[in-house]
């Protein structure tokens, strides 16, 4: 992490990927932390330069809670990605948690804790189903979680009757108010970053998750219970998604059946932009959280420029592509591969 050089500072987001010729080893070291941090700092500087209104305190106040909610969901996604999977049921899980959390807490005269417990129990069930189908039934994660997501949206539809649900006052109050000048939603997400970051890097569980994601067979050969570890990743992921769903419910006050959907793709994008590799193994929780902040500020900037949705989508796609590209490729290698693939083999 001390390996950052001047080359990185010039690598502003959306401008150009770093094209340094560092050796593979030192480059890998740098990827761990640098790109997303510099990209994010660069983005804020850019925002301040071209549209100061996008970084004033009102704008930041409006953006941060959403960044926090996305960060919590993306952290859950990171856990699953570490196990060499992906979880598309993030959408359905968030929605269901938002609906159940709201509904139940309201029904109990606003007792949030009972609501939370029930939401957590549901998350454990969802994660277990995902994990068991992936690990024991050996279904591709993409397919398993896609199918479960369909089911969950069905359950959400049934549960809410298709109508928006009103979150209890206490939840909304909590989500909207601030502690020491910082939004509670943001504080909760910071707590998640710290807990999950600690759990993945310092606990036996996190290290085992890393090993299983890196090589399931190798981990199993030395006594790790690969399938159980995988299931635990999906359960932990679902717990994060549910927490994000409850936060969302509090923040928007009236969650509906579609609430979680808009988090599906960004949660995956934040993981990748944050510098995580999709082949499993080590996870960078802080990177993911910063990635979520990056994506949220990007939308904020584009919105504040008054651009239409179309431009917003195009700019976001381009920036995500560049941010990922900056991590996965060196320009020289790209050129070589392109040349190699275009060169027609000689034939008689």
């Amino acid at each position: 992490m001390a390996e950052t050089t001047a080359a990185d500072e010039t690598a502003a987001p959306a401008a150009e990927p770093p094209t340094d010729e560092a050796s593979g080893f030192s480059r890998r070291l740098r990827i761990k932390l640098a790109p997303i941090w510099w990209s994010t700092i660069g983005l804020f500087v850019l925002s301040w330069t071209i549209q100061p209104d996008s970084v004033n305190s009102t704008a930041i106040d409006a953006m941060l809670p959403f960044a926090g909610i996305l960060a919590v969901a993306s952290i859950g996604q990171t856990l699953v990605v570490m196990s060499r999977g992906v979880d598309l049921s993030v959408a359905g899980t968030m929605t269901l948690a938002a609906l159940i959390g709201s509904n139940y807490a309201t029904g109990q005269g606003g007792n949030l804790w009972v609501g939370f417990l029930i939401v957590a129990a549901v998350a454990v069930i969802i994660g277990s189903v995902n994990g068991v189908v992936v690990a024991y039934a050996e279904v591709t994660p993409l397919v398993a979680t896609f199918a479960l997501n369909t089911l969950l949206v069905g359950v959400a539809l049934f549960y809410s009757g298709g109508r928006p649900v009103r979150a209890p006052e206490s939840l909304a109050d909590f989500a909207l108010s601030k502690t020491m000048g910082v939004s509670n939603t943001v504080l909760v997400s910071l707590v998640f970053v710290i807990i999950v970051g600690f759990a993945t890097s310092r606990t036996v569980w996190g290290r085992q998750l890393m090993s299983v994601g890196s090589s399931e067979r190798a981990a199993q050969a030395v006594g790790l219970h690969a399938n159980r570890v995988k299931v635990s990743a999906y359960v932990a992921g679902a717990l994060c998604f549910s927490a994000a769903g409850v936060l969302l419910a509090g923040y928007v006050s009236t969650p509906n059946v579609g609430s979680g959907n808009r988090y599906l793709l960004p949660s995956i994008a934040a993981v990748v932009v944050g510098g995580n590799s999709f082949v499993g193994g080590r996870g960078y929780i802080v990177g993911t959280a910063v990635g979520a902040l990056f994506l949220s500020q990007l939308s904020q900037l584009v919105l504040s420029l008054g651009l239409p949705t179309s431009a917003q989508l195009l700019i976001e796609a381009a920036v995500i592509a560049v941010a990922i590209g900056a991590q996965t490729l060196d320009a020289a290698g790209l050129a070589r591969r392109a040349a190699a693939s275009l060169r027609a083999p000689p034939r008689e």
Partner: protein
Amino acid sequence: MTVANRQESPSTPAASGDGHAQVLRLDGIYKHYPGVQALADVSLSVRRGEVHGLVGENGAGKSTLVGVAASTVRADRGSVEINGQPMDGAHPDVVREAGLAIVFQEPALLPDLTVAENMRLSAPEHRRPTVREQNERARSILADWRAVADIDPRTYVRDLQPDERFVVAIARAVSEEPAVLVLDEPTEHLVPAGVEELFRLIAEVCRRDGAVVYISHRIHEVKSIADRISVLRDGRLVLADDADNLTEHDIVDSIVGRRLETRFPPKLSPEDLGPEILRVEGLSGSGFWDAELVARQGEILGLAGIEGQGQREFLRALAGLQRSHGRIMVAGRPVRVRNTTAAMRNGMVYLSHDRHREGILPGLNVRENAATAALPQWATAGVVSAGREREDVGREFDALGVKTPSLDAGIETLSGGNQQKVMFSRVKLAASKVLLADEPTQGVDVGARADLYGVLREQARDGSTVIVVSADAAELAGLCDRVAIFSRGRIVEELSGDAVTERAITGAALTATAQRSDHAPSRRATRWPRLRRLAASDFAPTLALIPALIVLALIAIQANEFYLTTRNFSLMLPLVATLAFFGLGQQMVMLNGAIDLSVGPLASVAVVVASFVLTPEIHSVGLALGIVLIFVIGAAVGTLNWVLSTIVRINPLIATLVTFGALQGVALYVRPTPGGQISRGMTDFLKSTIGFMPVTLIVAAALAAACEVAMYRTLLGVRLRASGSNVLVAQKVGVRTKAMSLLSFVAASTFATLGAFMLMAQATSGNALIGNGFTLSSVGAVVLGGASIFGGRGSFLGALFGAGLIIQVNTVVQFRGWDREWQLYLLGGLTILAAAAYSKLRTHRG
């Protein structure tokens, strides 16, 4: 000394004039890999009619050299000639056409293709059979081997045993009547009868005036069959001479480099033998049965035998990696090892022979690699103490002499020997009573080997027992206090004390195998072979979907007879056709092992573009141009997806997620709010029917059938499946995998564009969001249809029926008047069930 560039075809060997014409010539080859000079100035010439032995230690550069000859590895410098034709940088196909056939250590066969398809795919062009002939041709090629292995050419390679795969690879190579046949460690996987057949075929190749390059580390085998021998050491050619001029001793010396006696640590003196730690009674499992064994503290016990006699399976069963039944007692206590976790808990830890796939944790650092199994011992309440971990790992690394720049260096940056030392420290840190070491010095150079022997001895002396499986009798003789010999899955002899010598071990193993000659490897039961083949085939899911469709229809009819009316079908079937097009596209990319999330928004783009260029006022030429434009846009998007995923190498899921967002942006930019009109003439045409059957569904079904046939009956289709089945192997056999990937992405986008035309007919105006939902439903359709997201397998008819099932579910729910969520329950539930069932069918076939 240079040979003139004689242009001659491989089929006219007589033209070479003198008897020493060189069929294969490698000159001054250099190859550098990160961290290692794999080859330095290696020259090799192979003459007609000779068997050329190529020997050297693991990592000496043998396989790299062969790769250079076959053009699958690109040399940094140097030239290759086959029959006088320069081959530098030629495509592997060209090299093969020139007469070089190669049997790799890991046979280059594609798992998701049948035996016959594999043979057809890799045959040189002038020998390639037609699809009609392929099974017959394969059968005749395999005929010579029937005594060794009876292989049906229609079997998928993934269903073959390892030795059967090797037979296929050798038989295929010999059948090409190559000018040069390269065999890389050919006898490793063969039963004795197979070795006999192999030697007979080698003689035949030489009689035909071909040449054989025979790579092996079994020196006496090479000595007995080769005419000339070349020795590689550390990427350099150190010896090349006629076999008659060399003794086995000379060869060994030049392989090892210096006259180095591997130093083994002193053996155990009998008075130091501790109490019994491990007792095994009547243990049976796959590959071994009724094994009895006792191991005591302080001793190293070797398990010997010819490859594949059950010794490895026995060891893995103790480690919990394989099922077994019988009695296992550790320190006097009966234990059960249902899995590796249980084995570890009971004090048995396993060191794998397959460092790459079952040893190192790629992407993690050396400390994390070493610490994996021992984490709990540094943990308080589940939290690992970083300080204690670093301290213990560091101490272990020092003791083992691991050469690493730091504890945080990536495992892949270390040399093979040092990686193996990290694996050793992993099992040592786990502090077990029984260390199960499987080929502990595989791929380790001589110097590091001595260190590792010392480590094993020390481990035993420190209160454990060590059990070693090794194919190297000299290693077992030097290291072990006792050696048990396995044959045909049983322990047939036990040597101890002074009887533990290389000669005794080899002798016992060999005489034991003599009894094996009548023994053919046991095969799976083949009852109902046709039914089994069908159940495991890519077509099975389609057959499963048909009853599901019918049952759902009956449910709908029971509720409402309107279901059976042509009016209902005329509403329902166009929806099936629409989804089918998207499904066919998704199936295309999945066959290639990728996924395309952008199909939905691409259709949206196509529809909004159509609302501008295919307006009702447009004349026929404009209409045609507009349609062409839309297809060009589709192809361009497919190309973009290909560039991002295959060239830039972004995971296809992420890459097409990016294009998903971008296309949505484009669609909204073109038409922010719904509007515009699409040519009535065209939409009416698209809605035309024959009876109640929409023409478009007929087209979709015809396309599905055509694709299905093409996948199995055309060379292009076989190549596409090959590329999806295993990219690296496909490249080895000359498939241009990047081109296949481009084809699949462009085809997917084109199918999505066809789907978009269906949407135009339904909406008749521009809407920037109309297609988005089809991304996920297309995935649903192919998954229901049985696609494997790993590529190589799947069925276009399956995708068609999958689309039908999705629409059917939606219709049935409406007809029964069920709530909307039932659609989602049924789809989600069916998808999970289908995916799980297909997955189980595939893994537990036979």
